[in-house]
């Protein structure tokens, strides 16, 4: 039996311990905000926080997160008003929007560790998150906006 805390709620899983966290969240726990993009930690669409750090849930086995606290996009802020989420709306970042949960989780983890990243630091940290629509310019703007409040 694997126990994890997801968005403040206790969950237990007695199925395959090798199951990637992504599919537990989406298919077993019904938290579909976290997205599948590549299954190989190449695109960042599945990014969640494990004990506060950004992690790619598509390659993270359930056995590896036993006893941890996981935050998904649904739990980032009770009202969806995390500074990063607000900045994202302010900058009208999304096009199709599919990758944005992963982008927002990556950006919020970045700002947690580095509240005022430079442009290069933003580009370095967000390099693992692909947006095929090409919202990168606005992602950069929004992360900067969230970091400065301006």
């Amino acid at each position, binding site marked *: 039996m694997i126990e994890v805390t997801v968005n403040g709620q206790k969950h237990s899983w007695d*199925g395959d311990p090798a*199951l990637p966290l992504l599919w537990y969240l989406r298919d077993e726990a019904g938290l*579909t905000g976290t997205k599948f993009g590549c299954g190989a930690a190449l695109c960042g669409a599945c990014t969640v926080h494990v004990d506060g750090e950004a992690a790619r849930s598509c390659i993270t086995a359930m056995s590896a997160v036993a006893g941890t606290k996981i935050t998904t996009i649904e739990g980032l802020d009770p009202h969806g008003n995390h500074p990063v989420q607000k900045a994202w709306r302010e900058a009208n970042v999304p*096009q199709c929007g*599919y990758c944005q949960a992963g982008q927002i989780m990556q950006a919020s983890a970045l700002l947690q560790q580095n509240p005022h990243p430079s442009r290069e630091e933003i580009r370095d940290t967000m390099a693992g998150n692909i947006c095929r629509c090409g919202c990168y310019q606005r992602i950069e703007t929004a992360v900067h906006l969230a970091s400065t409040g301006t």
Partner: protein
Amino acid sequence: MENLIAPRIEIVSRRAILRGLGITAGLVLAAPVLSRKGMAAYATGADKMPHGTVNDPRVFVAIAPDGTVTIIAARSEMGTGIRTSLPMVVADEMEADWSRVHVRQAPGDEAKYGNQDTDGSRSTRHFLIPMRQVGAAARMMLEAAAAAQWNVPVTEVKAVNHEVVHAKTGRKLGFGALATAAAAQPVIEVSQLRLKDPKDFRYIGKGTVGIVDLHDITTGQAMYGSDTRLPNMKYAVIARPPVVGGKLVSFDAADAMKVSGVEKVMEVKAWPWPSKFQPVGGVAVIARNTGAAIMGRDALKIVWDDGPNATYDSVAYRTELEEAARKPGDVVRNNGDADAALKSADKVVVGEYYLPHLAHASMETPVATAHVADGKAEIWAPVQSPGGTREDVAKTLGIPVENVTVNVTLLGGGFGRKSKCDFALEAALLSQAIGAPVKVQWTREDDIRHDFYHTVSAERIEAGIKDGKVVAWRHRSVAPSILSTFVPGAKHEMPIELGMGFVDLPFDIANIRCENPEAAAHTRIGWFRSVSNIPHAFAVQTMVAEIAHELGRDPKDMLLELIGPARLVDLGPSVKDLWDYGEPLASYPNDTGRLRGVVELVAEKGEWNRPVPKGHGLGIAVHRSFVSYVATIVEVAVDAKGNLTIPRVDTAIDCGTFVNPERIRSQIEGAAIMGISLAKYGEVTFKDGRAVQGNFDGFQVARIGDSPMVTNVHIAPSGPDVPPSGVGEPGLPPFAPALCNAIFAATGKRVRNLPIGKQLEGA
């Protein structure tokens, strides 16, 4: 733990909308149907699309007693913002307050909503007028209801921001209070409709309205195709034949069945190649969650018969295409005598260009959920073609089309891939077979290895120069056609491919000859954002820069000289079956004045010929596609190792009258990124009939570090009298040639083959 989330993108099933209208005293229930014709100041090709357009307000608008206005979005949302833009048009015309508007997504039902094929950059161009008519009719019916209630002439009342006002007496009634009475009003005849004066628009053309899904997207609540969850739903992945046209010989599921969570392994019905949009078959693993299904599939042992395409090899095929481009082919355009003019030219500039297959690689891979029971099918899927999907599901299952409901979710990207409904058909077949709801999830490898690929092409252009002028132009384009996905043995580009920047060349040259040698397809070819414009524009716009260099001319001046004076290009009998994006030339002529206009606009705003640092260069390209005009200037910087960065991009677009400039900007910004992807990295190659690349390590796309430091978008102010034209696709074709022309300016290295890859190392 089961915690089903109700879809937040509201799906309008036919039953639900009837129920909804009944409860909310929906606007106008019993009145004659509006004429589809009339009113439009310009004709479009909309009537030639299946089911044309619909402008009946009863289909698109409902008003609740509390004043909430529900507007139906019938086109698919894949990131262009159309789910916001067209309802916004209705709201503007009817004087609804956008903050009190609720948008609902229509299911696939083209008889009711009009054509729903969300492709070809057509939505605004075909539906701007019908949606304005819907809004105007709703507004006038609300006004008529208020006038009747006050017993005053209707000319004395006016709808303003969600209420109807009688100025003389200062009386006001809200839309909610008028809903029932408005519903009893006769529908206004199209000939009697008064559209708003464009100067009174509150939303159209302003760019002040955010997309309706913005909050849900940023909080993880937006519902994509992958997010559908139904009670007792099973999760499936499919192992498909690795070579197109291949067949399943046998499989051993013993190890797969041992994987925890796997419940069933079964064969999927296959259609012979060319299979159109039908499934290619394979072996499905059905499980309690997607992860288990994937692990189960990994454990399958399968024997395939690879079939006739097993020898498809991209290296050999490239040679075939390039050799074909050096020999005459079918003449698809002829003006004057290009062959003779090339012979007598002072100099002939020759350019050979090669562009490989591309995968769409939308961030949401193909995915669909189906529930087939009691002779009925309900589908939830991110499809660009809900109407076609509905028909194909009916045909595939052998049930009447009325028994199929296709619920359109948000699309996590489309780019043309989701115009093909094969993944929805797979889900329908599996649900029918096991008698439970099934979600079929494609992995990224499935997506990249079983795509309907962008074509691969060799382009060869010879330009004859005499007395410093271009007097002859011979362009050969060789590429497997999309037609090959439908018709066995198709070897020539169709009019819809030839018309994409090839035979419609708008240059003022006396002798022009376009030829299309044959090319057989060995994989599935499909539409990819901007389609054949990609290779055609790359070849033409690179060639212009090559000629400029040869003659020592400024590339922008050379471009304008080749375009020639402002005129409407009349190809006359030089092209048979000219296809102009399905539009009548009277409304959408090939206008070199507008083409010049975007070149001049981008040159001015983009500061063409500004001084740039050493190692930097500027490149320019222009292209008309989807009846819009787009010019791009790219500034590139190439370092000593050949790494390129893009300090600045300027793009000018003339798309006629426009609805949402904020989303035009986002589409153009995105087109630059997709252009960078295909120019720097994009390539799917085949070996032994199999796609070599399978994920984002092999099939690389642009990441944030590749992004331009600045992208400026300049929208030509055409005014309300110019018909709207495409936005989603036209930004892409000029980007790669502008980038590669900039690379030449920076390094002297001419890129003629994409992707750039490592070509700049040591440049």
